[in-house]
């Protein structure tokens, strides 16, 4: 590593003005917090939408007076229309996947802690970093515009002036094609139904912008990690969080361009009359679709899922990293099988590129490809199981401190197992005959990529909050938040499997039409009650977050007795992270309970003394990469 280059290129003086300090900041720490605040805002919108969905499913036909006021067209008389429901489905999925599960874990915590954990003073490209946040924020604003364009007649009429494909004001809160936006439904425009005008255009543009932001971020993460590690920070001495963010960045770099391309093609189909995804001879809503010919709906599915499957890992890998890190810290034990954990995280990431077809078994794709995708899919279970075993191994023989971050990390392990393991069911072609697009799928991905990832982020929030804001979050409130959320999410998503068992299809605005769904009606109500309680307790989290920022107990520099570089510097860290001192790393990241050491943890920066053995020898299974 060329230290000289660092200092010349990356060192920038601390800004003085408010705007350069907090708004258009190039400090990775400020940008990280901006990403987290964006995610905290987006997740509220997504959460409210999910509650509206539950209300509609459990009490169809109920008059909700507030809905009549807010959405007079989409919920006439306060009764949500089926298209309104579907637009909630679409926007909930899009907001959660892109603006929550992709922003907080990577853009948020990754941005803040990756440079500090590797001993760098900032990201490799600070201005690019600032741009990636602002681009992402614009993407979010564009997505929110879809709510107003479709939901509000006045604003809708402004959009309608932009042309046929921007027809708006249909009374929904956006497009109704699901977050996967399958064409031709998403490509045909308003002839295919409400929400398919400006709503879809804004949705595509938003996602395209998001892709650009994520690409900029991914470039930065990869460059930073490869070039800017401090002295002694070998790859195999990095905290597992850094491995997770690194792998995630590679996934983002390779998958987002494909979605970007797909999005552009879809937009062209809609506004420029191309036919990438629209075949000829379609007859929609009583008339033949002119002009389009020769497109393939399956092409979109391939492009979308080529991105979409790695995206699942983009959401969860940082959670795995944070969980490993936090488990080791509060177990007061080195991570079990560091090297195996690194290989597993990489294996999951890379295999994740070869399994997208499992979303398409019944799509009309070749049944032979389905078999190949299916076998590859189940093989992802192997590195996932390795991670689970190693987490249990880390806790074995531990001395566990049950802090709030630790509770959430343990919750992550539990939820990851619960959600991930049903992949063994859904990944089999023969079982997909029944389970495809049922609530069994909804259960699977909500538990694993939704809730488990969020638990990873809750753990990360409670863990790093003191470093970020100099104050501790309240532990009692944190525990209330954990217990209700942990039991709540199981109460919501375990019954989803039962709904899947009776064959309940996803994305139904109402289950009353089918006799075969009757036995699941009680479950639908049960889930709604659980969801209302679980959602309500998130208020405790928000309160704790913002209250502790100003009123929390002052935090010391290393309140958790942790070992990695972020705990060696001031709280909050100074502008250049280490106040001009280049930290030097002497050992692996998880040296807890080393026999003979004075304390039960040894910081990475502590020089290796002759009296302290830095770990077991390689031959006896030392996974932390020390070279003696």
């Amino acid at each position, binding site marked *: 590593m060329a230290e000289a280059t660092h200092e010349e290129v990356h060192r920038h003086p601390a800004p003085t003005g408010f705007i350069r300090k907090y708004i258009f900041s190039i400090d990775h720490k400020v940008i990280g917090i901006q990403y987290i605040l964006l995610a905290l805002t987006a997740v509220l919108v997504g959460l409210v939408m999910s509650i509206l969905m539950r209300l509609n499913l459990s009490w169809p036909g109920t008059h909700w007076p507030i809905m009549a006021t807010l959405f007079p067209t989409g919920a006439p008389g306060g009764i949500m229309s089926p298209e309104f429901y579907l637009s909630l489905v679409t926007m909930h999925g899009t907001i959660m996947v892109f603006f929550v599960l992709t922003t907080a874990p990577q853009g948020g915590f990754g941005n803040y802690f990756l440079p500090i954990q590797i001993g760098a003073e900032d990201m490799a490209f600070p201005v690019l970093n600032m741009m990636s946040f602002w681009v992402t924020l614009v993407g979010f604003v564009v997505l929110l515009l879809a709510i107003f364009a479709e939901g509000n007649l006045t604003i809708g009429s402004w959009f309608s002036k932009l042309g046929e494909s921007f027809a708006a004001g249909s009374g929904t809160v956006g497009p109704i094609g699901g977050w996967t936006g399958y064409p031709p439904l998403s490509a045909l425009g308003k002839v*295919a139904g409400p929400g398919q005008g400006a709503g879809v255009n804004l949705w595509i543009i938003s996602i395209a912008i998001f892709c650009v932001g994520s690409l900029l971020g991914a470039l930065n993460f990869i460059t930073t990690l490869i070039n800017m590690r401090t002295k002694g920070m070998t790859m195999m001495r990095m905290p597992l969080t850094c491995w997770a963010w690194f792998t995630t960045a590679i996934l983002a770099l390779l998958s987002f361009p494909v979605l970007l391309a797909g999005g552009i093609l879809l937009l062209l189909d809609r506004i420029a009359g191309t036919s990438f995804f629209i075949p000829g001879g379609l007859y929609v809503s009583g008339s033949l679709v002119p002009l389009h010919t020769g497109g393939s709906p399956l092409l979109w599915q391939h492009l979308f899922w080529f991105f979409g499957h790695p995206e699942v890992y983009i959401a969860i890998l940082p959670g795995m990293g944070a969980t490993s890190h936090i488990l080791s810290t509060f177990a007061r034990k080195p991570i079990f099988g560091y090297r195996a954990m690194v290989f597993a995280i990489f294996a999951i990431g890379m295999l994740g590129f070869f399994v997208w077809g499992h979303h398409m078994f019944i799509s009309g794709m070749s049944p032979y490809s389905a078999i190949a995708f299916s076998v590859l899919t189940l093989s992802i279970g192997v590195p996932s199981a390795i991670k689970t075993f190693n987490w249990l191994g880390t806790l074995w023989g531990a001395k566990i401190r049950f802090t709030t971050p630790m509770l959430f990390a343990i919750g992550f392990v539990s939820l990851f197992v619960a959600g991930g393991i049903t992949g063994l069911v859904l990944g089999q072609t023969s079982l997909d005959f029944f389970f495809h697009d049922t609530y069994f799928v909804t259960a699977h991905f909500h538990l694993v990529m939704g809730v488990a990832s969020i638990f990873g982020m809750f753990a990360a929030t409670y863990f790093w909050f003191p470093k970020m804001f100099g104050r501790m979050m309240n532990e009692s409130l944190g525990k209330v938040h954990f217990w209700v959320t942990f039991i709540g999410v199981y109460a919501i998503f375990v019954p989803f499997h039962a709904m899947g068992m009776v064959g309940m299809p996803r994305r139904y605005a109402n289950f009353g039409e089918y006799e075969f769904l009757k036995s699941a009606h009680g479950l639908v109500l049960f889930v709604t009650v659980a969801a209302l309680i679980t959602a309500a307790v998130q208020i405790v989290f928000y309160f704790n977050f913002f209250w502790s920022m100003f009123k929390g107990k002052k935090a010391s520099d290393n309140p958790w007795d942790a070992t990695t570089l972020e705990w060696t510097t001031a709280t909050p860290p100074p502008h250049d992270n280490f106040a001009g001192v280049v930290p030097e790393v002497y050992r692996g990241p998880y040296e807890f309970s080393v026999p003979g050491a004075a304390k039960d943890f040894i910081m990475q920066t502590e020089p290796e003394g002759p009296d302290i053995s830095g770990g077991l020898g390689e031959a006896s299974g030392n996974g932390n990469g020390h070279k003696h």
Partner: protein
Amino acid sequence: MGRVLAIAIWIITLGSVWMFVSKRWWFPEAISEHGPRVDSQFMITIIVVGVAFAAAQIGLGWVVWKFRDTASTARATYSHGNNRLEVVWTVVTAVIFISLAIMGQKVWASLHLHAAPPGSYTIEVVAQQFSWNFHYSGKDTVFGRTDPKLIDDSALNYVGLDDTDPNAKDDSVVSTLVVPVNRPVELILKSKDVTHSFFVPQLRFKQDLVPGMAIPVHFTVTKTGKYEIACAELCGMNHYKMKSYMLVLPENEFSELIALPQDKFQARKDELLNKYQLPQY
């Protein structure tokens, strides 16, 4: 805290396992030849999944109970792992998961890697927002020519059947799927507008209908009766009520029906639809 967490994890595990073991919410009865094979593959899988799930959760509960921080001054065990254990659990899970994966292709391959067996009865299915059309070839067993340009929903020509084609004379297009029992059925799946998906839970069968494609699939139904058809791919606002019925008839009743001209076919089909009852759920 460790003990409370352990108990919470165990109770959640027990509840989740109970939900499957009690079979209170379960597949509807299988009515296709391959259906029981799907069900038994599911049973094998869910046992593996259930055991792995329970073992991991019980183990997690156990370690948080056993290794909680107590007042003792002893430190945690210092260990960076164990390569032999890593190899063992990697190999064991790989063998189990890959075996499951291979077994999980059998039913799929038996249906999808073979053309419909000889003697199958072929029906064209044309889905549209938000209804189903089933095109029968009539006595001559030859489908009349269809053309999207001839589709005219207002004139009830939902599939664009060309009346000038002699083969079309005896064709019928109805909104209910009627199939014979114990005889292979081939469906040619098409869509007029957006992607739909053909799903009959009892059949253990689902396949998308993709505009621009004609996807041939086949299966054999083994039980007479009336069953609900649902659309399983989001197709627009009324997706949730894109519903039809599949009527499974004894061979004699079936061959009588398909020999009828369109209007009589329609009337007789409605009669039969009333005669048969949905299964008890």
